[in-house]
């Protein structure tokens, strides 16, 4: 699949990659340059591959309340929340952003690779009075992320339409097209996401990149997005998250509300939390340019005690950074470990996350 921007991206020099069935830009000028630009000025991303699922109707909130780990009562109209959906055994089915567009309409933004699975999962739990609509193919998404993102957006829409706080949404109009502006993102910096009709994607992209130019913003690919989310310590599905990993192990209990009456996976998660888990998600910094890669073993005293799930070189802290799962007894911050890469053994230590200070105010 291709977004309507495919030709334009090729013209802009994009190096394309396949991701979840979509041909998307990996990078334009270079992953490192783009990841730096998002911290210094701004980056503009086409993220139209993401999955969007509408939940409509008076019973929608009840269906979601059973499926997600956050308390739906806390998501008022015009607000957004990061959440998980878990299975009965507590494993993570997907992570998602929930937007409440109106009293009885929610938009779920899910991982592109999980759209089909999520739709089946939600359908299996739906009741009368709730419609579940796959809008993935008809919804376009452009993210503007970085300290200049607010300035860029203020040239595109009236300032009063820009959400004033994080995790808020507003309706707006860009070049005659109706859009939803969300103050959300996956970079750990300030930024906005513009949801639009796929048919309006090209005109909104052109507007964003043209205005972005004046702010020294650059178009960014999925390569920079991955670097930025690792710098922010954010997990990625199929790397840090899967159906065999629980929110306790992933250290995502801040989005699990155990005070809720019930939700799928609650009993299992509660039990895990009181009994404790054997492995935990950690951040690692390795010496020099020795980058841990997904699948690499983490060693202590020559013995494998964990595995790397993501790794990259961070151009913003100029260090080799990684995430992984490690036996609890070796998970203390400061612990020294080795990462066994394809060709080397890297000295590394366990560190707190985020790697790059998350500052969401623009």
């Amino acid at each position, binding site marked *: 699949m291709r977004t309507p921007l495919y030709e334009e991206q090729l013209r802009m020099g994009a190096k394309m990659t396949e991701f979840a069935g979509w041909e998307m830009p*990996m990078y334009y000028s270079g*992953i*490192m340059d783009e990841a730096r630009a998002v911290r210094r000025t701004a980056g503009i991303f086409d993220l139209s591959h993401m999955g969007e699922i509408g939940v409509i109707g008076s019973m929608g909130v009840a269906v979601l309340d059973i499926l997600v780990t956050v308390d739906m009562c806390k998501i008022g109209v015009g607000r957004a929340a990061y959440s998980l959906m878990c299975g009965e055994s507590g494993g993570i089915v997907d992570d998602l952003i929930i937007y409440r567009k109106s009293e009885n309409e929610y938009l779920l933004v899910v991982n592109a690779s999980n759209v089909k699975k999520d739709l089946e999962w939600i359908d299996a739990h739906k009741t009368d009075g709730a419609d579940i609509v796959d809008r993935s193919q008809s919804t376009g998404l452009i993210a503007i992320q970085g300290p200049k993102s607010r300035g860029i957006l203020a040239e595109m829409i009236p300032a009063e339409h820009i959400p004033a706080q994080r995790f808020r949404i507003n309706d707006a109009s860009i070049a005659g097209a109706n859009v939803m502006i969300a103050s959300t993102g996956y970079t750990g910096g300030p930024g906005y996401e513009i949801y639009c009709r796929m048919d309006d994607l090209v005109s909104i992209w052109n507007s964003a990149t043209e205005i972005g130019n004046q702010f020294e913003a650059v178009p960014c690919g999925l390569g920079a997005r991955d670097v930025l989310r690792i710098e922010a310590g954010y997990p990625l599905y199929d790397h840090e998250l899967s159906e065999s990993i629980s929110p306790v192990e992933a250290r995502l209990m801040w989005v699990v509300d155990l005070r809720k009456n019930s939700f799928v996976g609650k009993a299992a998660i509660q039990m895990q939390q009181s009994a404790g888990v054997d492995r935990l998600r950690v951040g690692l910094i390795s010496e020099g*340019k020795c*980058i841990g890669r997904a699948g690499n073993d983490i060693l202590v005293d020559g013995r494998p005690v964990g595995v790397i799930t993501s790794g990259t*070189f961070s151009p913003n802290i100029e260090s080799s950074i990684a995430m992984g799962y490690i036996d609890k007894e070796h998970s203390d911050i400061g612990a020294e470990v080795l990462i066994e*890469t394809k*060709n080397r053994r890297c000295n590394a230590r366990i560190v707190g996350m985020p790697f790059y200070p998350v500052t969401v105010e623009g």
Partner: protein
Amino acid sequence: MQPKDLMYTRSHEWVRVNGGKAIVGITDHAQAELGDVVYVELPKVGAVLSKGDVFGTVESVKTVSDLLAPVSGEIVQVNEKLPDTPEVVNEEPYDSGWMIELNMSKPDELGELMSSEQYESFIEEH
């Protein structure tokens, strides 16, 4: 476009022949596939390679890739600047991004390499 005066391997190395010596690097196509190169590991001068041997690794933000010897020979020079400035592999893959120079022991092996035209169609097919 690939420089016409070089020869190419299926593993995306290039070879510049100068008498009995061969300079080796990776192609523009290879560096674009790898993305930003952050680390290059090269062998020591004096190492003896057979065609197809792994002589080093090139590591990018995305992945690690082995470097394969296009021909057999003894290494007479390595690009000492690469460990400190790996980005030149992206910027100038055919010039300052060169990796090793070999004293060829079996120059006949050059016949098995591809011309620029052959390499061009090879990367179009793959």
